[in-house]
């Protein structure tokens, strides 16, 4: 890997970020007081089911969506106070975004190199000259074999890996990736996860990956879960929010589900400090 990292990893901090979608039929709470910190060079997986708000969180961090409340700092700069033009500059120079559905990240009629060039067009000034060439970038990411072909005919896995490469085209300090494996088989999923992990490790780029797949999150390092707009840092796994729905049901965190898989039996033990959920060994033994 000989490419030049223009931007070392940028830290990210979200402080009590909230977002409400308004529509004629009513308001929908997508994010509620999300606070998280990602260190420079760190890779973070944001894990959550569909509709949990994880893509909204990514869009807020990418500057594509203004939060209803809270602040976001990237590399010490408060992006929630930035103008639209400053946000464009931020995305052009310091922030790479890979949106869900790889086709949206690519010009279908261009080659892989054309796409890299297109992604680099927003870079101005001295940074422009220091950008890796498309061939070098693709080589660095192990995608040289895709370079001369039009992406319209790529497979899903190839498109997704190229989409990640597009996110890295400007050597950003922070790479945001939304559901990179949603439509891929296991082999392609692993390849994409490896690529994202390599980006973090070899370029020093801070990476935030949104996924609904626990295995993907597991392969990326630190994970936070997000459920119904609220985030829990998995490093503090002894504390985690769960929601009780209208019918009294509770969606357990994924790691808890490994202990209490669907179909297992548990006992609810009432204690002065709260409620304890205990695996029923008899049931387990059956």
């Amino acid at each position, binding site marked *: 890997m000989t490419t030049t990292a223009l931007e070392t990893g940028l830290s990210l901090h979200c402080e009590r970020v909230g977002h409400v979608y308004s529509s004629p039929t009513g308001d929908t709470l997508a994010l509620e007081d999300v606070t998280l910190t990602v260190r420079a060079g760190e890779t973070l997986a944001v894990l959550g089911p569909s509709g949990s708000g994880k893509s909204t969180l990514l869009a807020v961090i990418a500057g594509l*969506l203004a939060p209803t409340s809270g602040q976001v700092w990237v590399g010490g700069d408060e992006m929630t106070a930035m103008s639209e033009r400053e946000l464009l500059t931020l995305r052009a120079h310091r922030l790479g975004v890979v*949106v869900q559905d790889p086709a949206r*990240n*690519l010009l279908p*009629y*261009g080659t892989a190199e054309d796409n890299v060039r297109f992604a680099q067009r927003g870079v101005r000034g001295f940074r422009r000259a220091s950008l890796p060439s498309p061939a070098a970038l693709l080589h660095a990411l192990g995608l040289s074999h895709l370079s001369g072909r039009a992406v*319209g005919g790529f497979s899903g896995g190839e498109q997704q890996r190229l989409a990640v490469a597009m996110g890295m085209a400007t050597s950003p300090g922070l790479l945001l990736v939304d559901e990179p494996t949603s439509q891929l088989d296991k082999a392609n999923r692993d390849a994409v996860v490896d690529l994202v992990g390599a980006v973090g490790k070899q370029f020093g780029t801070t990476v935030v990956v949104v996924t609904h797949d626990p295995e993907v999150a597991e392969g990326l390092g630190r994970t936070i879960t997000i459920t119904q707009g609220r985030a829990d840092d998995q490093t503090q796994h002894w504390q985690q929010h769960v929601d009780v729905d209208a019918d009294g049901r509770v969606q357990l965190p994924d790691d808890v589900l490994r202990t209490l898989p669907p179909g297992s039996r548990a006992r609810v033990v009432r204690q002065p400090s709260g409620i304890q959920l205990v695996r029923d060994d008899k049931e387990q033994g059956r």
Partner: protein
Amino acid sequence: MNDLRLALRAFRWRRGGSIVVLVAAALTVAAAALGPLFSAAAAESVLQDRLVQARADVTTIAFYTPADVSYPGSVDVVASEQSGRGSVPGYGPPVHETVVPTSATPDNGLAAITQAVWRDGSCDHVLIVDGTCTVGPDEVVVSSRAADSVGWVIGTKLTLDGLQQYDNTAGSGSEIATTPAVVTVVGTYRPVSVSDPFWAGRPYFPFHPNPDGPGTVDSIFVSADLFATLVHPTMGTIGADLVLSEPESLRVADVPTLRAAVEGYLGPDTGDLKPTTGVLELLDAFEAERSSTTLAAGVVSAQLALLAWLLLYLVVTDTSEARGSEVALAKLRGLPPRAVAAVALREPIVLLLLAAPVGLLLAYGFVALLARSVLAAGVPVVITPATYAAVGLAFLGGLVAALLASRRMFTRPVLEQWQQSGESTGGGRRGLIADVVLAVVALGGFAVLATRSASASTGAAAALGWLAPGLLVIAAGLLLVRLARPVLGALVRSSRASTRLGMFLGSRQAVRRPAGLRLAALLAVTIGLATFAVDASAAAATGRDVRAGADVGAQVSVAVQQDPARDVQAAVAEADPEGRWAMVVADWIPSGGLAGRLLAVQPERLAAVASWSGEYGPVSVEDAARLLSPTLPDPIPLRTTTVRVRITSGPVAGTGPKVTIAYRGDSDVPTFTLSTPLQEGTHDYDAAVPCDVQTCVLNGILLDRARVNAPASVDLTVEAVQQKTSAGWTDLPANLDDAAAWRVTAYTGTPTGELAASSEGLRYTAELPPYAAPFVQYADVALPLPLVTATQIAQPGTDLRFVDGNGRDVPAVSVDSNTVLPLVGNAGSLTDLVALRRSAQQLEDDADWYVWLGPEAPPDAIDRLRAAGITVDTVTTQAERLDQISREGPALALRLLLVCAIVGALLAAGALAISVAVTGRRRSYELAALSAVGVSRGALLRGCILEQVLLFGTGLVVGVPVGLVVARLALPLLPQTPTATALPLTVDVQGVAVLVFTVVTAALLVITAVVGGAALLRQAVPDRLREVAA
């Protein structure tokens, strides 16, 4: 370089949509350029027609003055006066001439009235029939027909009384002796064409010979040297004409130069030496027609350009939506606004730049083809600055379309752009409001035009009438298509729960597709306009046919000479004895009493020969023929030298009348014989008549008491009318037992008395006042003369009188009237030729004579006329006239409208197919998905076809009725002639033309729907689901 490569790759990737944008943009440019290109070509055509068809006396710049022609320097004086005036483009060098009126008398022969003419170069414009054209001072060339008529031959000496020379043989005295010039005929000529511009429209060839007395014959051409031998002063005319020799070399661009040159040539009015010409008025008329044609063509092509622009806008909107994800990606990558705009607009701008020359070429080729078929031959198609301006405007319009189509991409947030689909409710409401506002504005515009049309039937103001159909069609089309949405919605609801999946898919897609109903509205508007144009064109074509027929009178009109030696009527009767294809017509302007022209026709041939349309008015050609020839008894032919009438009279009180017999000879004018006093009892009264040497008919019995100042009582019975033949006295078929075959008129005084018929004869009783001279007249000639008049001349039943060439009053009556009559239009009357010849004198000389040929005329009809002894002057055909009318400004504008409207309808129909092509890739994902979940391809195909059929059907069902209604309302506002015409032009629906158009259009639309639907489904293969969506 990379950008260009990427743009080319994008163009190739979206080649369907890109080509469609290119085509739509090229069509917009072409439509915009069409108006200036066509109007420039049409103006050239109108100029050519105006100049070439103009009479020579209009285009010639005539420069002549009375002068002493015997003075050798007279011609030089005129030449030097003229030389300072410069030259005029398109005109040849001056043609000098000297003219002196004279009589020409051969030895032992009758004199003929003529003029001695020297016209420089005349030998190049006549055919020498015999002898030579080169003449010395005492030699002349005469016309061959004059020679034949009055018996001149080569070598005949003619004495020219108007050209007096010094008589050197006279003795010396106090007075100068003169003698008429005597010249020798050395050649005979026939003019190549009397309408040759060389003759400048001057009356060089009048021909009314009279074997019995001085007649008028064509000019005799003399040497210029002859005038120098004449007595000083001999007054004549010296002139120099500038003749328009090369009208086809003049272009519209030359008109200002031509006008300035003519005005410069005419110069200030200096009295006698003032040139005259009608060419400036001709140029004025051309400018007026040109400006109205230019405006009309501009308005028509602007409407097409607007339609093409709407199509371009729709197409660009579709393709812009296809580029929406790229614009979102550009924003996502942080590209600055300028770069984002470049991504959004690069493709349409490149396509517009490519489309500009393509569109210009397209328009040029189209106009070249149109010019070849509808304009004057050889008219050039010129790219004017106005054309470039129109192309520039169209390019800007394309940019505006691209900006409007892309505007939401610039402002919409990235996430929203990816999520965007379909038209919002607010957009639908805004669209409805826009449609209603547009419709109201259009209706308001139409109302203004309808009001203005009352005061402007021609000219530039009236040319705005070409906006009327477009305005109405837009208003009606937009509003009615709005009604289609709930209808289609109901179809969706009714098919939702049924098993007819194809119906559901088709109707749902027709309602859901954003551009669908917009295109249906566009289609309805264009089909409405095309329906109007088809109907209006068919109506106008009918109107032009009627006009051409009315202008010429028949399919062919042959101007002929009325030669006393060979009566035209007799010659035509010989050439066409059955009266199926030829008719003699005399076009005559009475000396007074009756407004307009009097056209004498042969009623028994009128229906077979004349061009007669129901548009002329309520009187049909059969009615006119019947009214002009009421049932009359057969003439009583006389073949004798003596006529006898047997009269039984009662007592004659006071001074009785004298019995005078009247007959009509070859001249058809009543002639009265010597008279004999009426006696009591039964007596024969004989009268000598020259009816052995000419054809005569009995005219009646005059009881002459014009000089008797006393009343009288008369009671007599005419028992027999006889003529003396070799076999003795024979009775003539005088219908004495039929009172209706006779009538009482008055030679002097007023008609008095009663007629009664019995087996004994015709009884006349009367109490006559002083001076009254009753004329018991055989009623084989209608009296008063029945006329079918133009309504403007007289209403039916109006008693009329007119004055003949000898100053006699001729009574007439309007038996019916039409708005327009053949040849005379709204300013004349028709009458029976025979009756007129019997009633009016000097008709032979004063009238213009024609032979009209009808549809059944044989190909060699004119040769047959010549063979029958008729001298043919010129031939005019209805087809030629129709050709001329078809190249007038309004006709050209209407043709342009027809072509543009049909092209517009094809464009709109193509737009739906285009819409399929543009959205095909996206639609194919949906169809592939439906196919993947088990929907049969048959149902999908039915759905695809039905979707197109519903949209096309909406356009057709709305468009055709709207077009017909608009035709009724707007057609009267369109100027169909460059100047006002009295001919009522039809505004009736042209059912056949509209039906053919509707059927053809429906068939085309169905074919397009089937092909488009099948093509769409072919793209919907399962592999499509694996591709990257554009």
